[in-house]
């Protein structure tokens, strides 16, 4: 079974600063996907970024980037130039490759961006 660990329950960052959210996972699979989802207060969960394990290059989406360390089973999210709208709960998630696989979520981290 896979596990996803987000050890920091909450973090705070000043607007325009950079923040890194940590995530580690445990799996015996070699082919899988990793995700970061964002859930703003009382709003819809949306996908922030995804990474295929077979790709060595770290995924990037505008101000969001990941540091994927496959050997260390680490998948951190870096948010650059933090904005007030980044305030949300962030979930790291794992899915093994293959038909009918399911997502395994971490407990989430609450990020607050201070003005």
């Amino acid at each position: 079974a896979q596990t996803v660990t987000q050890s920091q329950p909450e973090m705070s960052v000043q607007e325009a600063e950079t923040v890194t959210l940590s995530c580690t996972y445990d799996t015996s699979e070699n082919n899988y996907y990793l995700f970061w989802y964002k859930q703003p207060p009382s709003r819809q969960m949306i996908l922030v970024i995804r990474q295929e394990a077979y790709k060595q290059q770290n995924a990037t989406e505008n101000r969001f980037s990941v540091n994927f360390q496959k050997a260390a089973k680490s998948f951190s999210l870096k948010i650059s130039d933090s904005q007030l709208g980044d305030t949300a709960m962030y979930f790291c998630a794992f899915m093994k490759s293959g038909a009918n696989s399911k997502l395994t979520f971490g407990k989430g981290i609450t990020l607050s961006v201070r003005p």
Partner: protein
Amino acid sequence: EADIYQTPRYLVIGTGKKITLECSQTMGHDKMYWYQQDPGMELHLIHYSYGVNSTEKGDLSSESTVSRIRTEHFPLTLESARPSHTSQYLCASSESVGKPSQDTQYFGPGTRLTVL
């Protein structure tokens, strides 16, 4: 944002009532999911479906039931609501195998259920 809808968004109901939480998507996705999320906590998969007439129980045991008669519709029913059912329920969907982004789940806005 993805085209996946949930109604009602908020529901306050008394113990013993039967309720149905609606979820529909217009993306033609084969796979659909129900998650339970307590405030400030992780998501737990309670039901999923890989197509019409296919439903499975998830990792977290739930007294709710689901049906999948149409591709776009995946309602969740509680026959007799209890205070322990108070939670947020999130519906999600994803593409079938072989389609681009088959691994990405798109979430609805959620239904916050309170049972008094």
